């Protein structure tokens, strides 16, 4: 699946997107998997209260299942307008 990062999550992780094969069942599982991968991820996801997630471009949450999802995006709370 495609994983996208925006704003300071993108900057901390160092890439805007990456392709990842994962068996994670939920968003929380995926975050745990990423955090164990590299300290940059561990730092970026240290405070999950500051992280929002979208599954296939729709706002979702940490408990959401990943079955069938092709695109996961992580980002801070939005500041548009």
């Amino acid at each position: 699946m495609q994983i996208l990062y925006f704003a300071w999550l993108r900057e901390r992780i160092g890439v805007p997107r990456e392709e990842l094969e994962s068996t994670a069942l939920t968003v929380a599982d995926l975050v745990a998997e990423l955090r164990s991968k590299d300290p940059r991820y561990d730092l970026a996801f240290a405070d999950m209260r500051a992280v929002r997630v979208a599954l296939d471009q729709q706002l979702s949450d940490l408990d959401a299942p990943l079955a069938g999802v092709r695109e996961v995006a992580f980002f801070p709370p939005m500041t548009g307008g």
Partner: protein
Amino acid sequence: MSVSVQAQDFDIATEIAALTGARKDIGAVVTFTGLVRDTAGHETITDLELEHYPGMTEYALDMIEIKANTRWKLQASRIIHRYGKLPVGAQIVLVVVAAPHRKDAFEAAEFIMDYLKSEAPFWKKEGTPGGGKWVDAQARDLDALKRWS
């Protein structure tokens, strides 16, 4: 109803004219324009960089516009949101709403702006003399959403 996510600037008069055209049934037009301010609190701002999530942004703006048109009796609406690096004083966002009555037009424009602040995937990074700083989401922007629920 239409939304645009674009790097280029926009012209308010052109957008209003495109919405109202030769129509004679519109009673009220409300516009909101958001601009890059030169200060944030006590900090000097040199420019503003707007990052967004292409694809999801358009989808989110469409949804917000549909919600507004479902809730109020509108005759036309338009949302333009820019991205990229913008200088101080530049236009960031435009909302135009046309309705038979002023109350609907005012409320719908404010509703769209409130949702846009918290549900459209944009992130602002303010340029300051000390470097770029990601703007934190404001508790008051989340509070503003509550009045609509």
